[in-house]
């Protein structure tokens, strides 16, 4: 197991370096620079700005300098927000993004698992079709459609919940968490239904039924562990996707998270901020995939054995 983890960590290093390198050169190829403004920057001023950020160095040298700093964990100063370092901005924005993703995934798990298990027990009845059709709609509905609808209903018409902010007004975290978690709840519902159906048709479940065990006992003690395995393998990439993909929800709900900075950094050609956030998100994706794999191994004795046998 330990070997497996170490192996995976070692694999992550070249992946992250490659991400950093490709991003570095790609953003430099994009037309326009960080100091381009509607009002032209006088050439003598531009010269000083380029000097300050070493943009007048040859590209290979800028790359080498960047990589050296990166290996020391220093993402450098932001171009657009020069009094903040990229590390500062990540530290400032990540808590909100992480918190939002956490609530969203909790919401998705509670609602998704309940609906999926419920549907699997009554498969091919109306009680299966209705939540599963709803889930299909949930999967298809992008957050930029769902968010404004929820806002309109609960924020503007009913006036129950705030329409924007994060931790400023009581209840302002509910709508964004639901909006972000909704599609994932729908996925989880469908995946867990499938997983449960597989398990429920196994012999040992039939035995349990024959023994006269209650449905609740069968589901929670015997079936669930196997039934949610596909959900676990979905969770790793899902959490990474939530973290990296929360920018739409962050924009709609005015949440001070990393996603909004990411989008603005691209528009502003804030080279260091784009790079820093890309590498940071890449790191998270690698990390959560690894965690999901570890949990899977831990849950599944078959895989555990395979690894042990190697």
């Amino acid at each position: 197991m330990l070997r497996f983890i170490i192996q995976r960590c070692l694999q992550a290093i070249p992946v992250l370096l490659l991400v950093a390198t490709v991003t570095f050169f790609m953003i430099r190829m994009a037309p326009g620079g960080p100091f381009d403004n509607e009002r032209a920057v006088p050439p003598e001023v531009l010269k000083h700005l380029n000097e300050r950020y070493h943009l007048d160095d040859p590209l290979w040298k800028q790359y080498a300098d960047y990589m050296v700093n990166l290996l020391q964990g220093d993402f450098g100063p932001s171009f657009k927000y020069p009094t903040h370092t990229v590390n500062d901005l990540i530290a400032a924005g990540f808590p909100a993004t992480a918190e939002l993703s956490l609530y969203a995934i909790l919401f998705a798990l509670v609602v998704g698992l309940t609906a999926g298990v419920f549907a699997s027990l009554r498969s091919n009845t109306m009680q299966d079709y209705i939540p599963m059709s709803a889930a299909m709609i949930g999967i298809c509905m992008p957050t930029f459609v769902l968010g404004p609808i929820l806002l309109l209903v609960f924020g503007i018409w009913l006036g129950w919940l705030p329409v924007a902010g994060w931790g400023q007004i009581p209840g302002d975290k509910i709508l964004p968490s639901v909006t972000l978690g909704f599609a994932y709840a729908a996925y989880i519902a469908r995946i867990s239904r499938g997983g449960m159906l597989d398990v429920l048709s196994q012999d040992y479940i039939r035995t349990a039924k024959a023994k006269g065990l209650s449905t609740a006992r069968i589901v929670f003690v015997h079936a669930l562990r196997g039934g949610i395995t596909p959900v676990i393998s979905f969770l790793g990439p899902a959490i990474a996707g939530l973290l990296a993909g929360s920018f739409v929800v962050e924009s709609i709900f005015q949440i001070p998270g990393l996603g909004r900075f990411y989008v603005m950094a691209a528009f502003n050609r804030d080279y260091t901020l784009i790079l820093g956030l890309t590498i940071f998100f890449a790191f998270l994706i690698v990390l959560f995939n690894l965690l999901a794999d570890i949990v899977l191994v831990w849950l599944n004795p078959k895989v555990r054995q395979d690894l042990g046998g190697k």
Partner: protein
Amino acid sequence: MKALNFLFLISLIGFTLSGCGERKTLVDIGTEAQILHIGNGTEPAEIDPHTTTGMPEYHLQMALFEGLVSKHPETLEIIPAVAERWTISDDGLVYTFFIRPTAKWSNGDALVAEDFVLSWQRALSAALGNQYANMLYSIKNAEAFHLGKITDFKQVGVIALDRLTLQVTLENPTPYFLQILDHHSAFPVHLPTLLKHGRMDEAATRWTRPENFVGNGPFVIKEWTPGKVFSVQRNQYYWDAATVRLNEIHFYPIDQSLVEERMFKAGQLHKTETLPSSKIERYRQNNSPEYRSNLYFGTYYYAFNVTRKPLDDVRIRKALAYSIDREAITKHITRGGQLPTYALTPPDTLGYTPRAKMIYDIDLARKLLAEAGYPDGKGFPKLELVYNTSQDHQKIAVAIQQMWKKALNIDVSLQNQEWKVFLSNQQLLNFQIGRRGWIGDYIDPFTFLELFVTNGGNNNTGWGNSRYDELMRLSTSAKTREERYEYFHEAEQILVDDAPILPIYNYTTNYLLSQDVKGYFPNTMDYHPYKYMYLESSKKGNN
């Protein structure tokens, strides 16, 4: 089932939160506590007045700093600020400012004449990279110092005659000089604080952090959380603290105007920075008292790249310019009260309204096109109009494309480009027709007309005219306002005759303002000092 349960659950949570009676909104609570909540566009890049360029930053600087003079919130007349009075020599070259003895920094230090000398030396030092340093170029030798032609700041026309007397000598009599003193590049900074965190000419040090900041405006920084809020609170050392009635201002960086509008409707903002054009019509129809539309000192126009065929032919440029129905554009497309315009400088700029005007005359346009060799548009080469990606720009471009097709029978293709790509192409003259806009820095025709001097940094059309350049030079040394304005009229006529640009309309600002906000006055500079604002509930019988 699942969906229903979920809705029910959410409703329950919401209902619990909402309580039984009417919930007080952030705006209601803010109004009671004199805390103003406003949308402020994008996240401020910085607040150092000598390195920033944008409006979101300027709004903060207006709360945190104050120049020698300031503007009346309603009439925009120059009024005393840090300087309690000043004298101007007969030749208009020497200004003597008398700093008020009560002026202080927010840490209690006295604000003296030397502070301005050092601050302007910093603003003009090349190493700082101040993009607005040229705002101070009207001061004697300021340009030479900034460009490194002289290194001794004593040669620049700024000197502290004594502790509270500042003398400024100009290169030329500059009628708008006092206005420039209210621009952020002329604001003073507290040198001892700056030096604690870096060199005097070093940008982006930590002196602007809330815990370090020292300013001289009516407010000081309370909190700065990137992406969330920038809040300020009263500065007890401000010389005119008795006038200030707001306790705090919370500036929210909201990139999306739709989000802002929603927050306003839900009672989370007293004022929005802007209003999406798609929403204007509804507010207008409802006669909403919260909807505001004010003329703004700027012009929306198209620029022709005169270095490219067929736009190198003035007849073609004119044909394109004469066949646009600007009234139709402002009435049916922009719909935000914009003013159709036929020249570059907005009307009534300190008594100057351009005499020169482009005309709307389709017959003449057709004739000009035929003269240029394309009767009824036959054989007219491919032409492309580019704009930066935005629905509003697109709508206007589509309308103009159709107007040209109908009037001249020519096909013009449209292309949208991402902002930085667009800017880069405009600067490299890599376009044929490009969308432009310009907002004046100070109320004077010069802020618009100087754009089109040959090879000017913001010209970007490839056009130049030696007489035009000469007129701009002459205007800086004119003895009287009449003489100056005559030069401007002639320059404006050259622009209209040579048509390197196609003016379309004068801007308006469209936004939502709570009726609780008092002491807020509409004006063409979108200039709203917070020192005069206060909050008073407009709800009748409010408890």
